[in-house]
């Protein structure tokens, strides 16, 4: 540490005894300063490393799935049916089942969740009811997916006699997506500046006119971002659809048909371990869809942020 300041001391010597004296007094302080700087650099280094590990984990998983899955992906893999006990061939029906059930769940969840968010953000006065609704939404968001699956089985499949079907799975998934969309929409609505609302009210618009024609269009990009992210979650969900939609390989036509989603297909292949190329291929397809949806959400967000 003394060496660290050697140069300075040499310069001080030339300046004379008075300056030397001053330097001696502050040497202890300088030492402390040095230790502080050392601790600072070490700690910030640790932060860099932590962030690096997080990114490395992501890159590792994506690369692993990509490298192993890429050879399996072909038009034939995407557009043909699996056959035989080892599920040779493609995954076409599982793709259709996934799209079907996710679309249906979106149709059910979106209007309810968006209107609920409108209520919370625009209409509700803070009070006990709002507290209860928020608590319920938070709880719903943290219900373990297996509990949601068992509920879907007990309620939609058995009590409502929907059997294992697209509709039963879509209703369960809708319940899962509800709090995600609600939260995204509410945040989007709250981010709309007040003066825009005041302008609308000032022109004599009613509350609904203001909400529907002024606030909602303004909040739309962020709401759509939330919808896209909720969709990604529904596509990747396994435990819920496992118990509400079944695992029969089937091309669903009506909402009461059963089917097997891509996530369930991946689970079955990975656990049985009899056809790993198909498992890697399915995992890659799933990742492509989810990463695609995430990028779409980012794109929407960035594009509209620029406009404003």
């Amino acid at each position: 540490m003394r060496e660290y300041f050697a140069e300075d001391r040499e310069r001080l010597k030339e300046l004379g005894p008075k300056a030397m004296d001053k330097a001696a007094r502050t040497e202890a302080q300088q030492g402390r300063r040095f230790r502080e700087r050392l601790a600072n650099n070490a700690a910030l280094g640790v932060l860099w490393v932590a962030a690096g590990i997080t990114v490395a984990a992501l890159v590792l998983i994506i690369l692993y799935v990509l490298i192993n899955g890429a050879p399996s992906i072909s038009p034939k893999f995407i557009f043909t049916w699996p056959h035989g006990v080892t599920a040779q061939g493609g995954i076409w029906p599982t793709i259709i089942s996934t799209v079907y059930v996710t679309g249906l769940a979106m149709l059910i969840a979106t209007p309810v969740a968006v209107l609920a968010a409108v209520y919370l953000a625009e209409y509700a006065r803070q009070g006990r009811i709002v507290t209860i609704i928020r608590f319920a939404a938070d709880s719903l968001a943290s219900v373990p997916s297996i509990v949601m699956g068992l509920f879907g089985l007990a309620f939609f499949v058995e009590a409502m006699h929907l059997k294992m079907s697209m509709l039963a799975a879509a209703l369960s998934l809708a319940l899962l997506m509800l709090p995600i969309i609600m939260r995204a929409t509410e945040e989007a609505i709250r981010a709309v500046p007040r003066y825009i609302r005041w302008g609308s009210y000032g022109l004599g618009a009613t509350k609904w006119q203001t909400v529907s024609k002024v606030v909602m269009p303004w909040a739309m990009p962020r709401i759509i971002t939330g919808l896209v992210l909720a969709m990604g979650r529904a596509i990747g969900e396994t435990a819920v659809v496992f118990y509400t939609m079944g695992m029969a390989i089937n091309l669903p036509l009506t909402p009461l048909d059963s089917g097997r989603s891509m996530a369930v297909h991946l689970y079955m292949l990975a656990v049985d371990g009899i056809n790993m190329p198909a498992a890697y291929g399915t995992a890659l397809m799933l990742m492509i869809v989810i990463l695609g949806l995430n990028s779409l959400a980012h794109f929407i967000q960035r594009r509209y942020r620029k406009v404003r």
Partner: protein
Amino acid sequence: MAPRLPLRQQDDSLRAPDLAETTPQYKKAELIMVSRATQIKERALLLLFFLCAIVAVLGVVLIFAFVAVKAVPLFKEIGFLNFIAGTKWSVAKEQFGVVPFIVGSVVVTVGALAIGAPLAILTALFLSEVAGPKARAVIRPAVELLAGIPSVVYGFFGVTVVAPIISRVFGGAGFGPLTAWIVLSIMIVPTIAMLSEDALDSIPMGIREASFAMGATPWQTIYKVVLPAAKIGIIDAAILGMGRAIGETMAVLMIVGNAPQMFAGLTKPISTLTSQIVLGMGYSSGAFRTALFGMAALLFLISMALVLIVRLLSHTDREA
């Protein structure tokens, strides 16, 4: 993708106050100037929105009711004490003690949290306090993507990559708590990191500037000023990450080994509440099925309790 960003209680200060709220004498004035038809329409819409908002409450109540109703025969068929304090699980002998699974869930969750939470909090600190715009533009989307990867893919990664490595290093089949820790800790990083970052970002810039002005280094500012200020928010994030770890089903099912036995070592297969439900559900009936629904009810109560703790913490935080 959003993890289940279980959401911090929202401040109402951002909402534009109505005339009717701010000035009492205008309470009814809002709709006086418009026609009767419009008034009715506005009221009907309000009712519709309210009903939609109630769906969330209805959902939670229904979930608990249906899971609990299916679990109620448990008191008669198995006996509550035999269920909650029993240490033996054997379908053939009709013994349904869930202690091994509770222990399994706790072991898996605590371990994942011990690895994942520090990593996530440090990542959040990096994003919020240290990273420049370029580093942030890379790392934040990466964290969000990590949240978007389906749990079945994480499980798949655990089965094909982590388990073989553990098997080679420690022997055995490679399925057990250690494998689950590694995979789960990565899974909960985005949840904790994103929520912690929210908490850190909500700390006013002014107190950081004050700290720098006193001559503090960046790390001193983080450690002595920013962290204490964001403490409650970060604890909330860790609790919600814990909720995700306890409730995680598919990934855990695929890598934990699924042996209904007591925790005996880091590489010995165990089973958790979630994985045991999935395993048994397919062929269950009678008392067995009741026990599985009882475990689901238990999980539901645990996750509700965690959300409640977070709300209470945030509440005291705001009042303080």
